[in-house]
């Protein structure tokens, strides 16, 4: 489903490579976690795989879509149809309600969902009662759960998550881990150093070992 070969990245031409020789293969429907220390490039990896940043070199194949050979517009269209992204900072639109955040994602994706369907999705993370609440009034854990539902609401085939449980309380983290690991048929790739999440991932990969080597199954 996701095939990454010899990926490298540097922020600017005058800076050293952040990472290089990164190889990764993720099968369809599998739930994979990539672990590594802070600043190693996990967030950047998620951004690159989501097509939000261009890699310096390497090849990325997602389904049959070769991301590294496509133009930005095609990448955006691919992401819109097939990828859901969860960010460490939630990145919700704070001035909107929970419902409106979901509706905006659906409007952009061109997908229709009834209010009941959206509430069902929220119910999976224990937030059905907050449907009409402004996002700004929610706690960090609740916001991250809304961000998770937003990533899932248009039924993407691939979910990319960057530290989805970082700094969250156990209850919020449990909801998120449960949905990502058991509650979806999508292929899930998570960048995290949260032990709670790494403990339940189908495959746990070390970021450093993926650079310049074949992938190593840690767990």
């Amino acid at each position, binding site marked *: 489903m996701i095939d990454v070969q010899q990926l490298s990245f540097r922020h600017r031409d005058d800076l050293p490579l952040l990472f290089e020789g990164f190889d990764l293969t993720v099968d369809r429907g599998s739930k994979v976690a990539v672990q590594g220390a802070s600043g190693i490039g996990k967030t950047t990896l998620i*951004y690159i795989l*989501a097509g*939000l*940043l*261009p890699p310096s070199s390497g090849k990325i194949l997602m389904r049959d879509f070769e991301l590294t050979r496509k133009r*930005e*517009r095609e990448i*955006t*269209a691919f*992401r*819109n*149809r097939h990828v859901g*992204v969860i*960010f460490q*900072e939630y*990145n919700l*639109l*704070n*001035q*909107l309600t929970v419902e*409106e955040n979901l*509706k*905006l*994602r659906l*409007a*952009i*994706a*061109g997908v229709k969902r009834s209010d009941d369907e959206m509430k069902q999705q929220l119910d999976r993370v224990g937030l059905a009662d907050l449907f009409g609440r402004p996002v700004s009034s929610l706690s960090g854990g609740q916001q991250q759960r809304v961000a998770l539902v*937003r990533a899932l609401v248009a039924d993407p085939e691939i979910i990319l998550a960057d530290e989805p449980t970082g700094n969250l309380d156990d209850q919020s983290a449990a909801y998120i881990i449960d949905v990502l690991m058991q509650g979806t048929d999508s292929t899930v790739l998570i960048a995290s150093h949260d032990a709670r999440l790494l403990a339940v991932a189908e495959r746990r990969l070390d970021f450093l070992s993926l650079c310049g080597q074949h992938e190593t199954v840690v767990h």
Partner: protein
Amino acid sequence: MKQWFIELDLLNRGSRRTFLFAHLGIFLLCFLFTVAYVLGSNVVSFVKKNLIGSLPQHELLVEVKKVEMAMFRMDAPDANKLTPESLETMKHLKGVTAVLPIKYATAPVAVEGSFLGQQFGSKMVLQGFDPRWLETEFELDKLTWQPGKEIPVVINSQILAIYNNGFAKAAGYPELSAAAIINQKFTIAVGDEQRGVSRMKARVVGLSTKVGLGVCIPNSALEALHEPFQGTAPVPVQAVLRVGQIADVDAVKAAVDELGFFVVEPPALVKAINRTASIGAAFGWFGAILLMVIAISYLNQTVKMLFYLKRGDYAMCRAMGMDRMRLRGLLISEMLLWVGIDVALASSFGIICVRIIHKTYIQETLLRLTGFAMEIQVPVERLAIFALALLVASAASLMPRIYFDTRRYVGAALKAR
């Protein structure tokens, strides 16, 4: 379309106050522009129609080109004749709205009558004119002659001045007011004993500074008087060319010169008024363009500010899957929609305000000061052109800004959120 509104509505949530103030600014500028333009254009029209229109600045007196040779004035080598054909040619010159021929009787003319109980009879010059020439001074009905009726006569007011300041003083006669002459009746006789005399009753209807120093009557009456004597109509010796726009005067003068005629220069006062009106109009246009530039600049700054406030949300939308073109389309169409609404509302409100100001203050004041009433005409077509120009200029000025602001790679924009 529904999706567009959803996206627009959701993206603008949270910055509505800023958004409202921004558009209030554009509304105010458009409102001021509308009030200034509608009021200004109406005042200019009023001045042209009633004040400048009453002066001969839009009228050029044309006659056959002459050269002086010793004691004679002769037709110039490149002179043209004032014929019905050449008058017709002048009528079609760009900027000319009317050609009013001035004719003179070529047969002997005498006037006979009585004044203050004294019989008089005198040889006179008889001038014919097109009644439209004097329409700013007389009602046209007064100058219209119908066969069998008295001929309306206009006398040059200088004749009365010559009598009062010269003849009356020298001979010890009483000086006369205009009332002594107006409504005086007499007979105009054209011809001589051998070839026959044509006589018609006439009555003075008023004085004017425009007409010649003789007995001045409508052309139709002159032709009727002339016809029994010679069997042909008198030919025009001068023509008044009426020019619609001050700006066309120079071009018309050049064209008339090329046709082989001479233009009698308008008085210096008229030239000065024309120049002042042109300068005023130029300032008006400059002001209008300045207001438009300010509006566009304001709009540009507003978009810049809104974009700054919403840059994170736009980046997030792109991260979710909204492509650049869609975001750009959304932003530009939103801005144009709002500018369109601002302009439409501001123009309507401006027109209503102008009508209220006119009714409350201007109408009565102008009537009292000038004696003329001013009606408000809304230049709808021109306002529509200005609105369109503002929309086009806004789009043209916004496109580069929106283009560059959305050019950044979405990951970088998102990290800067």
